């Protein structure tokens, strides 16, 4: 339902109301902005000296390195999450109990456990067993594991969204079950979930902010180091926020474009895995 169906085109009274509320909300927005500005100004947070760092070439290079490390961490986590998620999804879809039960258990475990807890296990518990990992691994493995659980559900949703007739037709022409999955169902499922996979990478990018905890020099950790030198905490993290928002908005926009294009190509507008497997990783 489009939002427009909810209300009629307004008559003169309705238009007047809309106009008044519009004006009130604009005034309220300005008042809020002014309040924030005044509070920041009063406490000296808007002083040019506190922002000058961010146009110096040295700082920009520093942030560029940090962003590269964020990308490296996200790629590393994806390199763990994608294959593992695929294996888990196929395991959960399997008809064999000894594959299905453990896969389901792993998926449910890592969907229900905070990334931070997994990070703490790698940081504090594993060394007791003599397992010492690099900082990069301590960041990337937990994110990858938790992403794998979610991605497994994405893959599974894709496979289940392929019409049953496809499987039946495959079996009818004499293909074995494994082969039906491999050459009939899975290629179609993969195409359908690609936009959702891209959208899910936003979650992975956001999770790399845990570099702050494990001291891997991505954006957040680099911010921490910078603040220790400059003491410009608000400014630094506002800049970092901006970087994250820009990167993630671009990824989301790309995912949406992919999905629109795919739906046009297949002539099916309603099967939206993207909408079904919602991005709800709030962290």
């Amino acid at each position, binding site marked *: *339902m*489009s*939002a427009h*169906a*909810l*209300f009629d085109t*307004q008559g003169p009274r309705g238009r007047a109301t*809309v106009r008044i*509320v*519009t004006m009130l*909300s*604009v005034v309220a*927005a300005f008042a809020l902005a002014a309040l924030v500005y005044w*509070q*920041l100004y*009063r*406490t000296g*947070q808007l002083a040019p000296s506190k922002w000058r760092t961010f146009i110096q070439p040295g700082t920009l290079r520093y942030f560029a390195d940090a962003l590269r490390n964020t990308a490296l961490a996200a790629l590393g986590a994806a390199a763990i999450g994608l294959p593992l998620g695929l294996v888990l999804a196929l395991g959960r879809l399997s008809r064999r109990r000894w594959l299905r039960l453990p896969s389901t258990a792993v998926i*449910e*475990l890592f*969907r*229900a*456990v*905070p*990334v*931070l*807890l997994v990070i*703490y*296990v790698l940081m*504090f*518990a594993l060394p*007791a*067993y003599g397992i010492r990992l690099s900082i990069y691994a301590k960041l990337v493995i937990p994110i990858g594991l938790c992403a794998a659980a979610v991605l497994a559900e994405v893959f599974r949703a894709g496979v289940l969204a392929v019409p049953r007739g496809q499987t039946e037709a495959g079996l009818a022409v004499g293909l074995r079950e494994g082969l039906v999955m491999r050459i009939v169902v899975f290629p179609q499922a993969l195409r359908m979930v690609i936009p959702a996979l891209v959208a899910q990478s*936003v979650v992975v990018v*956001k*999770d790399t*902010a*845990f570099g*702050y*905890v494990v001291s891997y020099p991505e954006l*957040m950790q680099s*911010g921490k180091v910078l603040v220790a030198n400059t003491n410009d*905490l*608000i400014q630094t*993290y*506002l800049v*970092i*926020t901006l970087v*994250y*928002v820009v990167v*993630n*908005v671009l990824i*989301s926009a790309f995912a949406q474009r992919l999905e629109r294009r795919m739906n046009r190509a297949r002539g099916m507008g309603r099967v939206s895995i993207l*909408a079904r497997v*919602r*991005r*709800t*990783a*709030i*962290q």
Partner: protein
Amino acid sequence: MDVLLRDYSDDFLAGLWLTLQLTGIGFVGAFVVGTVLAVFRISPIPPLRVAGTLYVELFRNVPLVTLLILVVYGLPYAGLNLGFYWSVILSIVAVGAAFACETLRSGINAVSTGQVEAARALGLTFAGICRELVVPQALRTVIGPIVTLFIGILLSSSLAAVVGMRELTATVAYINNREALGLTTFAVAAAIYVALSLGAAGFGSVLERRLRVLR
């Protein structure tokens, strides 16, 4: 395990209680603010729509850690001292609300246009359509996503540990640092998180079955 039960059951309970508080208040707050935002985004007032969209795009895309650092350590620089507890809740609500808004909006979008048009043809007002038609149906279709939202907020409450609040995750790390019990402590915490998540999911599916609308 005995050590855990003997010496640390109080710590565990305190941590769990804090996690539950952050999750509960965070969830209710996110739901309320998210509802307001969803109303903004479907209203006929252009500036409110824009404000809703901007809010969602901002807070859905910023990592909670970043926001947490800004609110907990940054706001005092700007002369606003909320304390750890409310700073963490504010951050969780701010981010959760963006997701709650999108969840609710997807539910509203699932109500068919034909029904709304029929209701309008019968002469129902905007408020009447919302009350009798849209809200009851939308809430039913989003029960599953709302449970997902709840679990997301439960997991995000663990981030309070980053700023040094001793909720469940931080409690476990603290006990581990003192006793070196290996994986046991962490397994207990993981079991609690899984139990809470599965409990919420179970509750959701019961609710879903009870309130199912046949379309």
